[in-house]
């Protein structure tokens, strides 16, 4: 090796060449899901370059930047392994901070260039690339250095929120009502002096703070933030109140408790925090502005966003779970405890050796994911109920002229029901969709139907939705048969789940068939099918995963 930098670079690329390829590919999935159908259903090619896509572009940029940043961070791993090498802290910080920034920028530039080549879109590259580099850099001080507190998640969330506001400002989207519908919005084609100032200032500050945190971490010095101190005090109180007499009635109850706290507790916490925060802001703004409309708008909007947060967090953590991560101990590389040895399906060697049957473990998993889903949905419903109560007391209703997207209370109810179904589906991703994707025979059925429908010259959107429905149906039928062969589920329970699922899907299509259309009905039925799938497939998946 020529130098330390060369040695570190070699170690990095030798270890991570596949990861550096997979994550940018993964980042393309949201774009693929949104842009390809849009291209197919758009009336003409001019639609793909219209300003109407600015909102989608901004969301996609944030999405790819976060995925790419996560990928690069995972590939870099913990910097602790370098602490014992004869390298200065400045070298460690500089090497990983700046090389990460370059990698993130290059990945984002490449992805956007590919979209530009493959799709009829003309989206700018420079703005998003600078944004991605800033994103990477400002998250570094939070993600580096050991912290025993989980408050870093809140801090990272706040930083991402601030960055998103900058992204919106870059597109000329004001943070006011109807911001997306104003005529001033535009693509982020040019970087203003303010953008450059933000970039230089945030990069300098982030670099200094990152180096400081790594230096502190290297010499074992704790630099507790205020939030960490608050958590420490809470820990002391919690420890004092802690009851020494712990007992569970059954292995299922014990495992549900473990699984809920280990994997899912973050979802209801995030939703509750979102709802509380929106209520606090709503009350504060309502009182300050002496305006009922402002209060209602923020309270409903905040709860509405919390519904999105519920689904998004379930999706995010569902994906994380596939790779062995978990919600409660969602650690950045530097925070991985020394005893942690997570494996896919959350089966560490300890829980793997507990004498619990596959059926009982499956029941425990379903209970814990169900509890997380229901608690978070209940929080949202309570928030809506409180808003309805306030509206009823004040003799008013939803200020529909200001919140055009919310048509009625019924709409909010439907939305919450849908988010409940989706959350349950996503929290059980690894027991439903993932095993399905691994079965080749499922794909044969799916592609066969897709080919037949395309040959019949059916619309592409319909064909895709129908193929997805068939994939789910085939998975559901084969999982049901497998569950009966292994006696994982009592026949009566299986019939009950099928009956209930079918009734809900039929009722949904009957009541909202006109609004949903054929594609919508197929998708809703598929998601209801996916929510049924874990009941049949979880025990089989655990059985397969336990023994290698």
């Amino acid at each position, binding site marked *: 090796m020529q130098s330390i930098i060369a040695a570190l670079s070699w170690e990095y690329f030798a270890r991570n060449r596949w990861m550096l390829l997979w994550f940018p590919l993964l980042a393309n999935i949201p774009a693929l899901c949104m842009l390809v159908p849009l291209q197919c259903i758009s009336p003409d090619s001019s639609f793909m370059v219209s300003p109407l896509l600015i909102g989608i572009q901004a969301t996609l940029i944030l999405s790819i930047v976060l995925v790419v940043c996560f990928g690069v961070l995972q590939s870099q791993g913990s910097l602790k392994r370098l602490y014992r090498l004869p390298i200065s802290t400045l070298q460690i910080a500089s090497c990983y901070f700046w090389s990460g920034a370059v990698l993130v920028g290059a990945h984002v530039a490449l992805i956007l260039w590919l979209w530009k080549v493959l799709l009829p879109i003309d989206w700018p590259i420079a703005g998003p690339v600078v944004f991605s580099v800033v994103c990477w850099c400002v998250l570094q001080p939070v993600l580096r250095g050991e912290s025993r507190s989980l408050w870093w998640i809140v801090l990272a969330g706040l930083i991402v929120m601030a960055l998103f506001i900058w992204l919106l400002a870059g597109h000329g989207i004001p943070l006011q009502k109807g911001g997306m519908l104003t005529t001033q919005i535009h693509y982020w084609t040019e970087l203003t002096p303010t953008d450059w100032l933000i970039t230089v200032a945030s990069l300098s500050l982030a670099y200094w703070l990152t180096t400081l945190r790594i230096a502190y971490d290297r010499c074992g010095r704790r630099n507790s933030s205020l939030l960490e101190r608050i958590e420490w005090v809470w820990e002391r109180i919690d420890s004092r109140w802690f009851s020494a007499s712990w007992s569970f009635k059954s292995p299922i109850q014990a495992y549900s408790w473990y699984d809920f706290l280990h994997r899912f507790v973050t979802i209801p916490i995030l939703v509750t925090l979102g709802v509380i925060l929106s209520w606090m802001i709503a009350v504060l703004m309502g009182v300050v502005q002496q305006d009922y409309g402002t209060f209602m708008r923020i309270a409903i909007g905040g709860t509405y966003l919390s519904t999105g947060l519920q689904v998004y967090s379930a999706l995010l953590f569902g994906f994380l779970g596939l790779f062995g991560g978990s919600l409660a101990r969602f650690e950045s590389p530097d925070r991985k405890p020394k005893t942690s040895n997570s494996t896919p399906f959350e089966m560490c060697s300890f829980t793997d050796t507990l004498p*619990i049957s596959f059926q009982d473990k499956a029941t425990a998993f379903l209970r814990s994911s169900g509890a997380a889903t229901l608690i978070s949905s209940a929080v949202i419903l309570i928030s809506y109920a409180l808003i309805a109560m306030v509206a009823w007391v004040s003799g008013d209703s939803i200020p529909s002229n200001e919140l055009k997207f919310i048509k009625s209370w019924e709409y909010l109810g439907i939305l919450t029901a849908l988010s409940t179904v989706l959350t349950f589906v996503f929290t059980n991703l690894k027991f439903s969709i993932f095993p399905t994707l691994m079965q080749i025979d499922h794909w044969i059925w799916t592609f066969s139907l897709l080919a037949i429908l395309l040959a019949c010259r059916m619309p592409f959107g319909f064909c895709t939705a129908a193929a997805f429905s068939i994939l789910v149906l085939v998975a559901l039928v084969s999982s049901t048969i497998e569950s009966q062969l292994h006696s994982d589920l009592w026949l009566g329970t299986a019939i009950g789940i099928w009956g209930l699922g079918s009734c809900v899907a039929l009722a949904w299509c009957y009541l909202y068939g006109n609004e949903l259309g054929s594609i919508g009905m197929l998708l809703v039925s598929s998601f209801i099918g996916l929510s049924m799938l874990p009941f049949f497939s979880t025990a089989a998946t655990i059985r397969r995963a336990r*023994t290698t």
Partner: protein
Amino acid sequence: MSDHVIDIEHLSRSFGKTQALQDVSLRVPRGGVYGLIGSNGAGKTTLIKHILGSHYAQGGSVSVFGLDPVTDPVGVLGRIGYMSEDRDIPAWMRVQEIIGFTRSFYPAWDTGYAAELLELFELDPKQKIQCLSRGQAARVCLLLALSHRPELLVLDEPSSGLDPVIRRDILTAIVKTTSDDGRTVLFSSHLLDEVERLADRVAILHEGRILLDQPLETIFESFHRVTLHFEDAQLEAPGLEGAIQSQGNGRDWTYVYCGEKEQLTQAAKGLRAQIVAQGPLSLDDIFVCHVQRS
């Protein structure tokens, strides 16, 4: 009821191109302490994972208490106390929480014994696992493995992280007590003096193969270090039947010999050599000899 708690027949396992276990046959008798020794990567943990049913047998068969651990994990794991090498217990739990959690899976859990061990190991029940040292985490693992008084105690590198006092006094006492109760202990270790102190029977595993599987007494009776004096100076070590290692020059050569003493005397006579020194071998020497020879 079978006399063997563990019955492994011609077990083979590979991970990609790496052959982790090759035609391993092993029978662990009921009662007593069985020591599994081997160098790093010898396949000790892989073998233990087969016993726990975490790995299926690619070739051969594994039977624990007469049951297949892959198809009947509850039947097998309910009777096993296992302490893993990596001490992988949920870091976010408190000591008392993990005890309460684990207790619910074992109907035979002995609450009094668990409390006794908690005191013996000087563990704070309110402490979080993530705040424990590696040694303390090892003690928690040991407590969890022992408190349901398992028929088979499987300890994977139990001494790793434990301080000498716990290791020598407490671990020894626990293992001996368990064995005296008629239960079985299977443990893997790098520390051969510990194996020598605790085990009744020892298996040496090297590169996925069992090199030796005998009661400790028989091993010590069979292996000797012997120095032979030859009439004439020898350029190479003269071939001695039963010798597994030789060293020396000229007229004096030292052998590690495996066999009966009478046979050794006869063999020495046949070579026109005199036995000038003879002594026992430590387990350490026997292990090194076997590994070098293989």
